């Protein structure tokens, strides 16, 4: 944090106060909202899910504070419901033709149309998220052109296929530029100036960390098992492998084995995701400006990694009941390690609210696509 002050004081003559984002939600309160959402969704056969989504997002946004003011989520649940119905019907039609009626040509037609519409839908989703978010009653806005999306997806899918994804960090930077450099808060313009070399560096670092981590874990596991066996032998207990084999039927061994593997997999993936999230969040924040104001990320990869792992363990052992707590904990860490450095919070002029299609957003939601906004 001292470093942070130095940087800012060098940039400007006057020391501009940096503010961290604050998160004021709490697990107990969110648990109630979450569980009522699920129960009402079940009772209404899914219709309430649109309202549930709005309530969840409203809760998260409204509890996010910057400089004493909170954010607002303004999506209309009725429009979300319409978007959901359209997406689910198209998917249902596809499944019907593909799996049930075996009319593969029609199914392929639906898939092709969906594929061609994909860049448009992704742009729709980006636009939806931004225009429904506001801060101090001034909405965000996306002004990117649809042709740029088509150009991006065409060029970068080909580039990645031919380079076996070695060029992916470059695509990552270009996509973030496509998103952020056309994003506005009121009339304030976002600008992302990350460079490809920096993205490569992060991917390389993550790659090395993952290898080191996997090696470390297997070493630890080996050490623990061998000392465990040595300890047992020292105590005069010998493991009768044959007796053990007879005791456990092959099915039980496979079951235990797959549970253990899944468990390790979940733990590792959660660690890895949170760890990488911290690196990329810092990178994104440090390279993004809003007019003359700028962001700083101060996330510690190890700290966020530990939060990720303990979250998944808490979720598994509570059979999902600690999900709201875990979600809030993760979000709080990320927000409270994000800074915004701005001279004047009153300066942003609004261009007003817009309405638009919800199909893109609901498609992204339904297929759980992460556009990483």
């Amino acid at each position, binding site marked *: 944090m001292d470093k942070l002050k130095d940087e800012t004081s060098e940039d400007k003559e006057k020391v501009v106060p940096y503010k961290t984002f604050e998160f004021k*939600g709490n697990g107990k*309160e*969110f648990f*109630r*909202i979450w*569980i*009522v959402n*699920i*129960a*009402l969704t*079940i*009772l209404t056969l899914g219709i309430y899910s649109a*309202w549930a989504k709005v*309530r969840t997002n*409203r*809760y998260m946004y*409204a*509890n996010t504070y910057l400089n004493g*003011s*909170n954010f*607002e989520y303004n999506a209309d649940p009725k429009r979300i419901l319409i978007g959901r119905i359209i997406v689910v019907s198209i998917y249902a039609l596809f499944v019907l033709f593909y*799996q*049930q009626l*075996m009319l593969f040509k029609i199914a392929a037609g639906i898939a092709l149309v969906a594929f061609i519409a994909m860049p448009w839908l992704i742009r729709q989703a980006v636009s939806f998220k931004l225009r429904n978010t506001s*801060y*101090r*009653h*001034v909405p965000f806005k996306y002004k990117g052109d649809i042709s740029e999306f088509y150009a991006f997806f065409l060029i970068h899918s080909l580039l990645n296929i031919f380079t076996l994804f070695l060029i992916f960090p470059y695509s990552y930077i270009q996509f973030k530029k496509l998103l952020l450099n056309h994003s506005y808060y*009121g009339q304030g313009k976002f600008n992302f100036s990350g460079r490809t070399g920096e993205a490569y560096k992060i991917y390389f670092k993550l790659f090395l960390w993952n290898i080191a981590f996997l090696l470390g874990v297997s070493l630890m596991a080996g050490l623990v098992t061998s000392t465990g066996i040595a300890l047992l032998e020292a105590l005069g207990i010998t493991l009768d492998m044959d007796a053990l084999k007879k005791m456990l*039927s092959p*099915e039980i061994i*496979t*079951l235990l084995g*797959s*549970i253990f593997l*899944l468990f390790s*997999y*979940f733990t590792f*993936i*959660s660690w890895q*995701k949170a760890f990488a999230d911290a690196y990329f969040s810092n990178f994104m924040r440090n390279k993004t400006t809003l007019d003359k104001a700028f962001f700083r990320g101060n996330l510690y990869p190890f700290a966020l990694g530990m939060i990720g792992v303990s979250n*998944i363990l808490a*979720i598994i052992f509570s059979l*999902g*009941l600690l*999900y709201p707590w875990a979600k809030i904990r993760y979000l709080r860490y990320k927000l409270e390690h994000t800074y915004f450095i701005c001279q004047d*919070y*009153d*300066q*942003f*002029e*609004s261009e*007003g609210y817009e309405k638009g299609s919800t199909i893109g957003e609901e498609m992204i939601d339904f297929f*759980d696509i992460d556009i990483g906004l």
Partner: protein
Amino acid sequence: MLINALMYDGKSSKEHKVVMEFTFGRRVLISSHNIDVALDEVSIESRLGNTPRVLNFPNGIRCKSTENDKIDQVLRDFGISKSKAYKIESSLALTLGSVLITIGFIWFMLTAGANYTATALASVLPQTTLDEVSEMSMNQLEAHYLKPSKLSEAQKNIIQTHFDLLTKGENQYHLHFRASPEMGPNAFALPSGDVVLTDELVALSKDSEFRDILGVLAHEKGHVVHKHSLRMAIKTGVAGVIIGYITGDVSVIATMVPTILINSSYSREFEREADAHAVKELKKMGISTKYVAELFESLVKEHEGLENNNSMMGMISSHPLTSERIEYFKSYSQ
């Protein structure tokens, strides 16, 4: 009533500290900004925990107030109904009720619910659909694992007669004789009622009248009667949705988890159910269950021998052969 709020004009990000006054004439005043509007023109968003309440005024003006309790009081005083969602969320009993509904629903869908849904779905799905799906898998199997049977006509006739007796009056069932060195001794049923029996299994039979094979066929019919494939699909689907929702962030693998877990634990339940069906059918036909028990015993031996050969048998066989199941048949064989 006076309520403190922050006001935004919707034109810029400027923030104004204001006091809203709710008057008895159902009007809202913000005197510092010369605002005087009817209460009914102000839309007040539903309460959400203790987040600042949003009040939207005409002309794009928005106020936010943290004095939620006072606003609720105003709503009560003026007879405007509070949000139902907040009522449920703020009531301990209703929140607990939600927990119970959720857990109950998941439990139900993974147990009895899957059976009801399977039955309901099966009655909605036209039989032609089931047939077509089965035909697809049958074609796949024919192409990769199944070869024409080398059984003699006499052998086939005996088994076919058993099968016809077993499925008397139900014309959805068809028996297919096939050889399959890859699968080894095996029998399986498709949801359409097509039952496949391998020569390798027939070869293991020690009964000249093939009463043991009849037991196996009755078992396979049990799978069809109890709609096991559909039930499995539903349970896998439900578990997939739940796990996917809860783990959210790790959804890549989430769809595979239930398949692995359910296949190994539920298949035993299904085998038991099919076994019970076989016992029932055999009893009805007056045939002892000892033959099929013996066949299972020789299958276990065969299985142990094959394990060392690294055969496909262990992987494909959907029938975990346990001494428990053999004992089960034996217990009915007096």
